[in-house]
């Protein structure tokens, strides 16, 4: 174990903002993309249901 405690882990030797910023942004983008695609799929199906019911 190379980290003394959790705060040392988040501090990242003073580079916390850069390191966690990089990983955090990547995570946000990925989660957002999956959520957006699920919505797009639901939207497409909703439209198709309207079209077929007519």
């Amino acid at each position, binding site marked *: *174990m*190379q*980290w003394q405690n959790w705060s040392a*882990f988040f501090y*990242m*030797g*003073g*580079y916390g903002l*850069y*390191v966690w*910023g*990089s*990983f955090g*942004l*990547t995570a946000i*983008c*990925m989660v957002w*993309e*999956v959520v957006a*695609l*699920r919505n*797009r*799929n639901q939207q*497409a*199906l909703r*439209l*198709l*249901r309207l*079209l*077929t*019911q007519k």
Partner: protein
Amino acid sequence: MKINWFKYSSPQNFYPLAGRMVPWFAWLAALLTIAGLYVSFFLAPPADFQQKEAYRIIFVHVPAAWMSMVIYIVMAAWAGIGLALNARLSAMMAQALAPTGAMFTLLALVTGSLWGKPTWGTWWVWDARLTSELILLFLYLGFIALQAAIDDPRRADRAGALLALVGAVNVPIIYFSVKWWNTLHQGSSISMGAAPKMVVTMLTGMLLMALAFWMYAIAVALMRARCIILERERNSEWVKELVGAEICGSQTKTGVNA
């Protein structure tokens, strides 16, 4: 056993297949990410001599940059196949890959910027590696915008394919930029045929993260391909039957919501 691959070149047969494949790739991506993050933060060496802990950005920056180039090549290949064989599913695959490729390019640029500030002292320099990667982002955005601007989807496919194929010349330029020009960006960390210039745990972390990004990209591209198929084939009989069956019967059997 002989598999008829051409069967899956029709959107009708590909749609349910893609739906079954998405969860597998999604789970693989999740597991590899957990393993990759564990290696990156707990097994990889404590701090780089010069860069201190900021070096850990490598575990997200390099895989993202790799994916930005790999996805472009795959996208251009699909677009080329679509153009040559007049196959609409290939064109749809190219279309499905573009936004994910653009996202990884943006992430490579932003994480690179976040790495550059503490180590180089600047967010951005107009050096060959950074500039050619920025051009890659513009190529992705240009491809997406061009397709969106043309109403007839088949014409949009052809125009997009030409742009994607011509733009592919940029990928080797990005890759070799650190060799061809004197750049501030460091040379490649891994090269074919030479022993890697880094600790094994560091290399493992990077490769695990890269594999995770691969699996993620495949899962997301398949999800988007399914959306595109539904949107573009909405007037076809099979889509109407698919949705009709879902309205009449149970939703789970048809797998429409999967």
